[in-house]
């Protein structure tokens, strides 16, 4: 237990300040986590979803290019296939450098594998299409469709994974923002309790002894000799009582000497 009044008051306020400062720091940390979650959603998951959309678009274009090629528009078809191939490769590279979810790399590897199967088949078809009849072309196109759907499915799986990631991150954001507010809410309640306690202790250990001292001074008469206000603490108020008694003693001695 601290002895001086100054130390008691100082420590009490320091504890209150400490409580509020820590609450502030905790809130900042939690809000920072919200910020990180937003960054994850915006920069990472959203970027991956965008890339999967690019892949799907390019895949559709490659399929259209093949159809054009088989229908006789070879130059346009070949150009479309090559452009789509480049677009998919670019999107895959971006997705590979933006792994945010667990096992996302496996999903990308699956896309590469399925797309390579589809693209190889497209290439083989375009290379041999000159010798094929319309019925054979139709049959090969249908076979390519299986590989096309397989690649599309792999891309959609990656998109779904990232969409689930967005959902998860949004939930985390919701929880984190709630958690960020909690230290503040709890601190408000704790500060009220703390203030009530402080008020009680100030009243019990400062105001009441001072009032007792005042009552002691008021009810003092010379025959009593000293003021005894029943202060048990060992702080400045006790010293004030002691010094008041010393002063009374000196005054009484002076009075007796002057007689």
């Amino acid at each position: 237990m601290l002895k001086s009044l100054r130390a008691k008051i100082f420590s009490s306020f320091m504890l209150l300040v400490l409580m509020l400062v820590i609450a502030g720091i905790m809130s900042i940390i939690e809000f920072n986590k919200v910020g990180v979650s937003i960054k994850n959603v915006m920069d990472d998951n959203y970027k991956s979803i965008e890339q999967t959309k690019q892949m799907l678009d390019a895949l559709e274009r490659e399929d259209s290019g093949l159809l054009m090629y088989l229908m006789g528009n070879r130059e346009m078809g070949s150009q479309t296939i090559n452009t789509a191939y480049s677009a998919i490769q670019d999107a895959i590279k971006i997705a590979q450098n933006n792994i945010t979810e667990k096992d996302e790399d496996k999903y990308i590897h699956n896309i590469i594998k399925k797309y390579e199967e589809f693209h190889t088949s497209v290439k083989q078809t375009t290379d041999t299409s000159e010798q094929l009849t319309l019925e054979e072309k139709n049959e090969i196109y249908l076979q390519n469709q299986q590989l096309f759907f397989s690649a599309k499915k792999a891309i959609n799986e990656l998109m779904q994974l990232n969409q689930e990631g967005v959902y998860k991150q949004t939930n985390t954001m919701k929880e984190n923002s709630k958690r960020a507010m909690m230290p503040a809410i709890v601190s408000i309640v704790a500060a009220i309790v703390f203030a009530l306690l402080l008020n009680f202790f100030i009243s019990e250990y400062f105001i009441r002894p001072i009032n007792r001292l005042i009552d002691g001074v008021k009810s003092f008469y010379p025959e009593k000799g000293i003021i005894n206000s029943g202060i048990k603490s060992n702080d400045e108020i006790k010293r004030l009582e002691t010094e008041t008694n010393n002063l009374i003693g000196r005054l009484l001695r002076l009075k007796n000497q002057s007689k």
Partner: protein
Amino acid sequence: MRVSVIAKYLGFVLLFNALFMYISAVISIFLRETSITPLLYSAILCTIVGVFPQIFVEKTEELKPHEGIAISVLGWILTCIVGSIPYFMWGGEFTLTNAIFESTAGYTTTGSTILTNIEMLPKGLLFWRSATHFIGGMGIILFVLLILPNAKAARTSIYRSEVSGLSMLNFQMRMREIVRIIGIVYASLILAETIILWALGMTFFDAICHSFGTLATGGFSTKNTSIAFYNNIWIEITISFFMLLGGMHFGLIYATITGRKQNLFTSDVVKTYLAIIFIGILFISFKLVNDHVYNWGEAFRHASFQVVSLVTTTGFATVDTSVWPMFTIVVLIYFSIQCAMIGSTTGGLKFDRVYLFFQTFLKQIKQTKHPNAVYVLKMDKTLISSDIELQSMVYIIVYLVILLISTLALSAMDIDLITSFSGSVATLGTIGPGFGKTIGSMGNFSTLPDAAKYIFSTNMLLGRLEIMNVIVLLVSLTDKNK
């Protein structure tokens, strides 16, 4: 009543809670979990508010009896409130009401829960949940007495308000020694069980959490399906054995280990207690076999675990008892009311009082037959004073009256009778799960109205504090001539 002195001791209570919050926070920090801020901030808050009264209030040697009671009762209430802060701050399923319910269920070692998915909780918070069992098992106040600086008179006053007169019968030593023995027995049994469960295949984390839950006779598990998750007969046997020990008088356990004359094997109360449990297991097993629920082996296995779990007020489960025949439910409800032995970590009515009740009943019959004869009551060769006899009878009556009031209040909220009654029995007896589909061994209290959760929380506190202390405190607060 000196509020400042009470505040000083409540400060110690907060500091003790803070210690376990720091440990839980360290687990969360180590595992980089979402519960770091809730646990760490709660710990810091408890430390600050706990230190605050120590700045002002001087060391006190003497405490008046009603101040001791106030410290004991308010200490428990305060503990339950501050214990809910980490849950409330973490969020998820924890609303303010749910957090207070979970915290109270933890400290009072009831083990009822509002969680529908326990396994999604961060490990730090799961540890905190089990730590509340550990603290509540021995009793927060006894823990504080154990670590309290030398203030003999003050300690005695608090101790008398925390430990019932009946439980002191098997402790033939001084208060300081009793608290030390309780601490040693409690810690040693937890350590032993943790090692065994770990060796039987549980993770160390699960082993320590389940040991806290077992020896504190609490029942919080780290798994949604409680002990049924492991489906391991050796784990069930180990937990049953330690649940039985947790439900026995710690003084007798210590006496047995140290080879004293009056021990677990010579105690008539213990023998009767174990005999009744065995008869209960046989009744339930027979009914389960007769109704083709299980074969003999399975019936005995599950009946044993459930009876021991409920009679010791633990509340762990290996099966869903809500599908069991009504007769078995009635037997289990009897054990839920009877509870375990005084001087243990259990709450509720306690077997010693039931034993004393029947002794008194027999004494009254003899007295009626021979009005001039003098009969005395003895428990384990110790003479029972008429004061203790009267206290026990009054306690049983008050307990049953509160059970009735609680059931009535819950029924008024349109909660079905089996949930209202078994929930009241389970919370007042600090058991945990009740019966029926909602709050049965595999259910939870989440769907009940908030008001019902507060009634159950009050029941848990009353059951843990042994009712009379709370009544004495209320009388002291309202008594103008105090």
